């Protein structure tokens, strides 16, 4: 899957530079600062799930590539690590920039000792050295250069400090001969040599040989590209027998410690910084609770009241309702006349008066405010603290706290969230969460319409709706965690990045990128839906469909037969389906009970086309189809149950 993707990234004839590093060390920040096109920057581990590439501003002939964060390349523990390792092994990488968080030099050196086994020139960026220095850690980079025989450059990526010097250095270096090489105990070195001899036709043979000995299962696919099964068998034999992990870890650790002693000086820092003080509240099991309510309140006011209320009113009524739509309608009637083309653009389901009005006046404000709020929470380091705090709840439904970030993002866009399920550690968790996202989480577009629909029914209904979502999420999470069997055990170990004040420029940049993504996903679908609707309306297919779906819609859900249209729209996008109900409600065709049943059913209804395609891409065709069918079934069943409950009440 990643294969074709990477091929177009590396460009032969140009200098291909790859950024490598632990998660959350500022790789993406460096990437954004030095390249012409911008990519997402993030504050929690695992965001860089896609590989980004661009060109360095000051060097025409360059390609710069950002890779997912890694801890260990000899033995991979996550999909991200696997992707990065394969990238380094399979493609013609000309330079590596290892980005190290100066506060965590140890981990960086650990990774450096592994990367030095690759036959690629390396420069190290000692990033965030200001933060390290504030914490009393001084690093002697001259000494590091002396030890390793490669360049170390101090940088502060967010401020652009040191980046010019970093880039200039990368462009200059070519040589790999004079640098430090680690020596493993004799018996392991002999093994490496034996494997190396079998790796005919490969680059980076020593690195690859070490990976074979430590991590045969995960490296097999690379071997299969060039070796016959006989040789692979031999390598497998060599990798068995003794446990080399301990030898390698011990050697690496001894070297890391020896080096750190020579290059790091610690000063005593007396006072706690403000962020540490705040953090002691956020890490406290009780004191964190009020901050959760404050956050929800912030979301409610910023997204709900300001975005979905004030902004939507202004755009929908003042701009589209009073200015654009009457004017455009007038124009069409005047110059085109009363025909199908006019209907297609400015009629009841018209592209301008329905699709675009809807996309830009209702969806856009809600999505924008949501993404701004989400980026703030993400960049501040608050979300990772929630991950850790709420982990035990998610553990009960077969997930881990890490599921919170995709779930929260799902309230913005479920398709985007489906991509980020990659940050979960096991296949089982990824399956469960992908399904739950598609089933339960309403994206901001859908929330916008649904809120508009039920806000008139009072607070109780709103709470009931939210409880239903939580209940369905937990219930199906639990069921799936029992149904999906796996040998893989999931261990929750999670890095909490330091708390930071989010940079406004970063927040706006991320919001802009997400919005752009969202609009290009959504608008074409809206226009398509408009066209289908107008055609259905003209040709008279609608009545036929009403009849076919009537047993479910009328019989089971107790809705008027016209509601079938909303469900058909729902196949395109759930929020479009919700809009269908909105239209029915405007016409006064729905009772209060029917409105509640519709809202619950459409909330759970099938994921939008974009999400469906993403599910297939990420989890495979079979999973996608099974999920699709079960979700429709579940949505109708639960809708029906709600109907029965409401009757009893």
């Amino acid at each position, binding site marked *: 899957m990643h294969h074709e993707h990477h091929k177009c990234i590396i460009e032969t004839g140009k200098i291909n530079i790859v950024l490598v590093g632990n998660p959350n060390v500022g790789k993406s920040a460096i990437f954004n600062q030095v390249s012409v096109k911008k990519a997402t920057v993030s504050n929690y581990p695992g965001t860089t799930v896609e590989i980004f590439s661009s060109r360095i501003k000051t060097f025409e002939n360059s390609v710069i590539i950002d890779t997912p964060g890694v801890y260990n390349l000899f033995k991979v*523990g996550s999909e991200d690590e696997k992707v990065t390792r394969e990238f380094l092994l399979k493609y013609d990488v000309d330079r590596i920039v290892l980005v190290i968080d100066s506060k965590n030099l140890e981990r960086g050196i650990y990774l450096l000792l592994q990367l030095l086994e690759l036959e690629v020139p390396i420069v190290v960026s000692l990033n965030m050295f200001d933060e390290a220095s504030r914490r009393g850690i001084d690093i002697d980079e001259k000494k590091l250069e002396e030890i390793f025989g490669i360049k170390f450059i101090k940088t502060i990526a967010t401020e652009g400090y040191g980046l010019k010097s970093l880039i200039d250095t990368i462009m200059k270096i070519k040589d790999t001969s004079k640098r430090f090489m680690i020596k493993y105990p004799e018996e392991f070195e002999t093994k490496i040599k034996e494997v190396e001899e079998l790796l005919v036709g490969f680059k980076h043979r020593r690195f690859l040989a070490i990976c074979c000995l430590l991590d045969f299962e995960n490296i097999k696919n690379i071997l299969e590209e060039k070796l016959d099964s006989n040789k692979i068998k031999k390598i497998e034999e060599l990798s068995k027998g003794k446990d080399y992990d301990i030898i390698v870890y011990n050697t690496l650790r001894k070297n890391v410690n020896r080096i750190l002693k020579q290059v790091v000086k610690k000063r005593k820092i007396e006072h706690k910084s403000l962020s540490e003080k705040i953090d002691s509240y956020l890490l406290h099991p009780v004191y964190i609770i009020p901050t959760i309510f404050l956050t929800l309140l912030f979301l409610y006011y910023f997204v709900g009241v300001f975005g979905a209320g004030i902004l939507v009113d202004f755009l929908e009524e003042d701009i589209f309702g009073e200015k654009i739509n009457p004017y455009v309608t007038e124009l069409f009637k005047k110059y085109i006349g009363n025909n199908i083309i006019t209907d297609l653009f400015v009629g009841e389901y018209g592209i301008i008066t329905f699709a675009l009005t809807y996309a830009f006046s209702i969806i856009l404000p809600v999505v924008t405010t949501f993404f701004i709020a989400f980026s703030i929470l993400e960049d501040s380091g608050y979300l990772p603290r929630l991950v850790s705090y709420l982990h035990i709840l998610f553990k009960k439904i077969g997930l881990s706290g890490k599921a919170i970030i995709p779930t929260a993002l799902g309230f913005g866009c479920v398709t985007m969230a489906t991509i980020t399920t990659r940050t979960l550690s096991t296949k089982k968790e990824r399956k469960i969460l992908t399904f739950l996202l598609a089933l339960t989480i309403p994206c901001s577009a859908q929330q916008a319409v649904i809120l508009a629909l039920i806000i008139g029914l009072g607070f109780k209904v709103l709470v009931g709706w939210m409880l239903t979502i939580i209940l369905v999420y937990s219930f199906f999470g639990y069921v799936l965690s029992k149904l999906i069997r796996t040998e893989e055990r999931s261990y929750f170990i999670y890095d909490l990045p330091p708390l930071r004040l989010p940079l406004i420029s970063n927040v706006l940049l991320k919001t802009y990128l997400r919005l752009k993504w969202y609009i290009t996903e959504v608008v074409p679908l809206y226009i398509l839906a408009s066209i289908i609707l107008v055609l259905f309306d003209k040709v008279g297919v609608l009545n036929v469909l009403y009849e076919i779906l009537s047993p479910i819609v009328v019989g089971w859900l107790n809705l008027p037969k016209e509601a079938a249209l909303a469900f058909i729209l729902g196949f395109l996008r759930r929020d479009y389906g919700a809009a269908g109900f909105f239209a029915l409600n405007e016409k006064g065709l729905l009772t209060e009970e029917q409105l509640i049943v519709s809202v619950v059913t459409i909330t759970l209804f099938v994921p939008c086309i974009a999400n469906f395609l993403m599910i297939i891409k990420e989890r495979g065709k079979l999973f996608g189809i099974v999920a699709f069918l079960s979700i429709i079934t579940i949505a109708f069943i639960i809708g029906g149950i709600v109907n029965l409950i409401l009757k009893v009440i």
Partner: protein
Amino acid sequence: MEVIEEALEYVWILEEDNKNEIDEFLKNFDKKLLNDLIKNEYIVVKDNKLELTEKGREIAKNIVRRHRLAEFLLYNVFEIEEESYEEFACKFEHIVDEEITDKICTFLGHPLYCPHGRKIPRGKCCIEKKKEIESIIKPLIELKPGEKAEIVYFVTESKRLTDSLISHGLSPKKKIILKQIYPTVIIQIDESIISFDREIAKRIYVKELD
């Protein structure tokens, strides 16, 4: 007596490895000793296999326990390399009495596995979880927030867990500060803050620091 102890210890290990055939035993000891052991009701022979009697098992268990505790002490606390501690552990198992064994076991936090990964037989102290002498090595979960400690070893059956702990920077000898133990465990290690399951914290054994 020492020879008998050695022989019974060997039978115990053969049983662990499911290799308790007579031939296997005779590779290291002679026929006469085997007959002595049978005569004194330390072992019985069934289908060409040796089995410890209750009396024999008790002796073997104690000797194995002492041996493995000694290994653990030397390796994890005094950090002596394998070649030298093996020899000492072999002498140690014959000279220490039960009371001292239990004290050492408690002192070490009732460890479950020896450095080779074999099970250390449980003693009385482990069942009672004696605490009169403060264990110097204990699971991380038993510390209080704010306390400092040094990681001594992990007890895990899963390599994946060990790998993932190590790649997050947790390894023996590293100093940590415990920040929180509920709902998840949060520690500071160097300048990183790491959060993990309470389950995992039960498997990380630490030495408390002041």
